[in-house]
């Protein structure tokens, strides 16, 4: 058992996490040069394009130390985006140590610090690694000083590495063995394992990626899931090499996968406890949280005849993505579609892109929103994840919205900017703590609705890219919220309704109607766009009618030229959605997002 080490890597984007991982795999001969694709761990296209890791992966290495002892090292990879903080924390909980990689030419980034905090919360041993020491503008000593300030370590505990050049890799492996504690846990107790990820395999069902905390799980064992009480029989289990390698059992401390004819990926929830034996004898592993979407949005087929295709595509994505929630809904404006719940805006964009790119579907996406808790005059409490479903004003006693506890780490020179931004977003200031002389951690309580769109981007730009953001749901807080309706030629368009704070409603109404006027093409008649709060119209814009659209001369006998012109015009209409009498382009339904970016 003490010959096992489980570790993770904490690094900022581009600081060399993937390259270092590749070197470790190479040095331990987990994969040879021939198998070597650059940056093996980030394998999805979208991940590579966006420079982030979305799905978690793990890999097992055999390592023989300088003194000849044999060790098994499990590297558990983590995603690197604020939308996925919970998943990161569960992956870290499966490890006893982490490599903290800092780019010698960049120094420590704020996001690294917040992930470091997550690691420290999970009591991980931290091995500081300064990477890219070969770069001409590397500031190795400066970076080491930052690390010493941050971690209170000795200079000689910091490893100097160039993953690209293969310098210092052995020292990293030696440090993993010597610094990372072996897994603790009771091999004789009933088995407990933590799920840190799962994937869906069309032949084998949901495959759980686990870390065994106590006991042992064998092929043929009956296992149960703590949160759902469902039981399954293990048909296969094994280790992660480049492929999945079946074994007979997974022992205390080991990392591997379990196949047990689990039909639904929602049964293998990240953070849940897999156990054997009786439930009453089992203490669930700490930290499990039911996945709760942060944002909701409608996804509709651009053309209603593609509804079934869209359903099939979402179902397929859902197979591999337990955090995607969806249910059918209808909109007066958009017809039949789905209300989907996402972990965050990035998650939403990924789903959107996969639907269009991988499934070749034209979709209309409505403006994302958070979930509101509404107390009705009758005393009933309902949850509203679609503004169109908000009860009428007179039926509402009050509305609550989700708030988050946010931690923003920023260089101290930008504190003023951060405060200004959070104030604009209705943030409630809590505390400021200095991490080191140049860096502060600010704590705020913020409405989730104010940070889901572009808060992170704005935060980055107001701090020249240096600040980080982490947040945790703090619960529902009563707010003075109103529903802004958009009327087009006097008919409310449900898909454009939006819930926001009363103080912001007037300005938003103006911006939104102005944006819609830009986006809606001229029609055969005047189009009046109005924003309304209840029955009160707060602003109005008009799209003048189309008055001239004619080919006066039919190009001699060149009928084909004329026909092609009209066919192109018809083609252009495909991006328009007929809402009542008015043709509205797909992008108009996301006009709110564009306003925020302006």
């Amino acid at each position, binding site marked *: 058992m003490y010959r096992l080490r489980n570790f993770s890597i904490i690094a900022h984007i581009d600081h060399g996490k993937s390259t270092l991982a590749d070197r470790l795999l190479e040095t331990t001969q987990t994969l040879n040069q021939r198998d070597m694709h650059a940056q093996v761990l980030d394998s999805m296209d979208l991940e590579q394009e966006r420079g982030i890791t979305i799905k978690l992966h793990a890999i097992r290495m055999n390592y023989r130390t300088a003194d000849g002892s044999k060790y098994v090292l499990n590297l558990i990879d983590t995603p690197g985006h604020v939308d996925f903080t919970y998943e990161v924390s569960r992956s870290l909980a499966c490890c006893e140590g982490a490599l903290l990689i800092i780019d010698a030419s960049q120094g420590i980034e704020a996001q690294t610090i917040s992930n470091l905090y997550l690691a420290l919360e999970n009591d991980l041993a931290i091995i500081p690694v300064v990477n890219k020491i070969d770069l001409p503008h590397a500031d190795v000593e400066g970076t080491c000083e930052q690390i010493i300030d941050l971690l209170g370590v000795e200079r000689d505990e910091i490893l100097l590495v160039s993953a690209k050049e293969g310098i210092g890799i052995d020292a990293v492996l030696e440090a993993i063995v010597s610094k990372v504690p072996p897994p603790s846990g009771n091999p004789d107790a009933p088995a407990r394992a933590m799920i840190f990820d799962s994937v869906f395999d069309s032949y084998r069902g949901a495959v759980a990626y686990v870390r065994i905390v106590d006991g042992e799980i064998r092929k043929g064992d009956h296992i149960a899931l703590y949160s759902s009480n469902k039981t399954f029989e293990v048909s296969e289990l094994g280790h992660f090499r480049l492929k999945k390698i079946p074994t007979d059992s997974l022992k205390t401390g080991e990392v591997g996968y379990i196949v047990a004819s689990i039909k639904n990926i929602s049964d293998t929830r990240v953070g849940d406890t897999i156990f054997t034996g009786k439930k009453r004898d089992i203490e669930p592993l700490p930290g499990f949280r039911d996945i709760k979407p942060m944002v909701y949005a409608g996804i509709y087929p651009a053309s209603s005849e593609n509804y079934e295709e869209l359903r099939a595509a979402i179902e397929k994505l859902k197979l591999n993505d337990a955090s995607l929630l969806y249910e059918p809904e209808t909109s007066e404006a958009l017809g039949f579609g789905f209300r989907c719940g996402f972990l965050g805006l990035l998650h939403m964009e990924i789903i959107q892109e996969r639907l269009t790119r991988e499934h070749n579907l034209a979709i209309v996406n409505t403006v994302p929103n958070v979930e509101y808790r509404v107390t009705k005059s009758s005393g009933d409490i309902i949850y509203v994840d679609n503004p169109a479903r908000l009860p009428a004003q007179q039926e509402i006693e009050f509305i609550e919205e989700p708030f988050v506890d946010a931690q923003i780490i920023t260089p101290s020179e930008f504190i003023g900017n951060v405060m200004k931004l959070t104030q604009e977003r209705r943030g409630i200031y809590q505390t400021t703590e200095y991490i080191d002389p140049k860096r502060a951690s600010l704590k705020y309580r913020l409405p989730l609705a104010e940070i889901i769109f572009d808060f992170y981007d704005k935060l980055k730009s107001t701090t020249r890219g240096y600040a980080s953001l982490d947040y945790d749901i703090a619960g529902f807080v009563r707010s003075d919220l109103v529903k802004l309706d958009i009327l087009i030629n006097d008919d409310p368009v449900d898909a454009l309704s939006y819930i926001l704070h009363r103080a912001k409603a007037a300005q938003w109404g103006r911006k939104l109607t102005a944006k819609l006027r830009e986006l809606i093409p001229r029609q*055969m008649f005047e189009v009046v766009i109005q924003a309304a709060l209840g029955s009160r119209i707060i602003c109005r814009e008009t799209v003048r009618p189309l008055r001239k659209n004619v080919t006066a001369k039919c190009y*001699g006998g060149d009928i084909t030229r004329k026909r092609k012109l009209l066919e192109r015009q018809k083609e252009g209409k495909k991006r328009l959605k007929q809402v009542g009498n008015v043709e509205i382009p797909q992008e108009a339904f996301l006009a709110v997002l564009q306003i925020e970016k302006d």
Partner: protein
Amino acid sequence: MGFSIYIHIPFCKTKCSYCDFFSITNLDKQQTFIDTLEKETDACANDDRLTGKTLNTIFFGGGTPSLMTPDDIYSLMKLIIRSFPLASHTEISMEINPDDLTNSKLNGYIAAGINRFSLGVQSLDNSELRILQRRHNADSARSAINLLRSNDVNFSVDLIYGIPNQSVDSWLQTLASVIELAPRHISMYCLTLEDGTRLQQSINSGVLSLPDDEIVRAMYLSAIEMLTESGFAQYEISNFARNGFECRHNMAYWTGKPYLGLGPSSASYIHPFRWKNVSDIDCYITEVNKSGKAVSEIDEITPDTALREYVMLFLRLTSGLDLSEFENRFGIDFISAHREILERYYSHGLLSYDSDFVRLTPEGMFVSNEIISNLI
């Protein structure tokens, strides 16, 4: 069934600012062109799809056909007549430029067989003519019309509206003066900005600007009113005639009749093919001398395309789309296929329909691209 011939004469002394039809201003190649055109005509005479068919209409367009001498026209006509029998009342039209017309030339053309002239007046306002970069002025346009009238020959006048700086008043003045000069046919075309024209450059660079859509629409609708009151019936988006003087050649285009195009850039249609000649004089000459033809694009008209063409063309006509003929040809009930759209346009006064026809109203015609693109 008979057919039509279009002959493209690709020469102009100067190029008008708005025109994107194929033409060249180097007149040196005229003779070679005429020789080549005769070769192309001869070669087509052997096309067995046309053998024995009567010729209903002939149209000399351009470019500027009136740069051709009456002798040139005569020899071409002889060649055509040798190959194809003429119908009893073959309409033989020719576009003419006011500047080129003399009494003797006109008589020569008449003697060569031309029985309908289409005079490119465009405007009777000199500042507007300058913007269009026409060679003639208002006076020469009037004298050309008087010349045609004194010879008692059938003629049409071409006009353009929506010219930069043009007002509704100045447009209606031009139109009223033209009506007074008593042509039997008037075409009025809304100025269209075509890619690559000098006018487009002037507009893009801000030197000139087009009148607002509302103004141009007012020009169109008030012109229809004025023409109707003066006894001209509208029969197509841009065409008006006294009873019986509709241009049969253009009607052939709009009603799906076959036609043969001769000369560079000309278009032809013999079902199920549409094709187009090359838009290059040298290439045209070389190719015709090599093989008797100079085709650059051929399109096979599938049933689907035929349906779209049908909708697009018949909705240009005031007589409209004949529902039972449409159903016979395509097996589709047009009304039920498009009921929602038709009702919407109907409610906005853009079209009318009953159990026999769908027709665009004048207001509908001016947004016909939008309407038709929703119906094809």
